[in-house]
């Protein structure tokens, strides 16, 4: 995996890839006139990006603590992030100009991007091993 030694570059790469993937459904929903879906997707992706950035800050802070404090700190921050997710989903459910499922999809997009990236990387490595063994 590229940029594994540099968290800032890795974070930018994750965000870039998820935005590239998000362009397809956003443009499709825009062209088909489903504005709540588009708005929901954009809302979810923006919140998800901000939470990723927040998580990097929390991780960097936690590494300067002792083991027990870091454990408690990250656990507490997780529950705060969980509350943010709850508020976001609640707003998407209550607001008629936002599609709830599209917002949830937007929130999950970064996670799916990471999983897809890792799977592709593993496949690439296994193919490279096979090609090298035939040489």
């Amino acid at each position, binding site marked *: 995996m590229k*940029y*594994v*030694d*540099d*968290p800032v570059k*890795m*974070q930018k790469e*994750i965000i870039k890839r998820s935005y590239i993937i998000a362009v397809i459904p956003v443009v499709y929903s825009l062209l088909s006139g489903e504005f709540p879906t588009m708005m929901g997707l954009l809302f979810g992706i923006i919140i998800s990006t901000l939470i*990723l950035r927040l*998580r*990097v800050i929390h*991780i*960097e802070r*936690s*590494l300067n*603590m*002792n*083991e*027990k404090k*870091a*454990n*408690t*700190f*990250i*656990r507490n921050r*997780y*529950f705060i*992030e*969980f509350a943010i*997710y*709850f508020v976001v*989903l*609640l707003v998407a*459910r209550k607001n008629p100009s936002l599609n*709830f499922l599209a917002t*949830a999809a937007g*929130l*999950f997009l*970064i*996670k799916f991007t*990471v*999983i897809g990236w*890792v799977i592709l990387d593993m496949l690439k490595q296994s193919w490279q091993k096979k090609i090298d063994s035939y040489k």
Partner: protein
Amino acid sequence: MVEFSPDVIDTIIKAAALLGAGFAMIAGIGPGVGQGYAAGKAVEAVARDPEARGNIITTMLLGQAVAESTGVYSLVIAIVLIFTI
């Protein structure tokens, strides 16, 4: 056989949905505990090898991003159960 009126059936369905939402929210606790444990171990790893700090942060970031998704699944299910029925 006991027959219930439509109002009673509606109340039972609503109660079951709310109970299901409550049970679904239990899944939100696990990732928090797991992430905290991973953070503790990351601190231990950085103390052992400070040069690997960047690598550890990246690995932890990817792990936490994926681990959190199960908690958000439960949240989505709970909100759907609460507000749809």
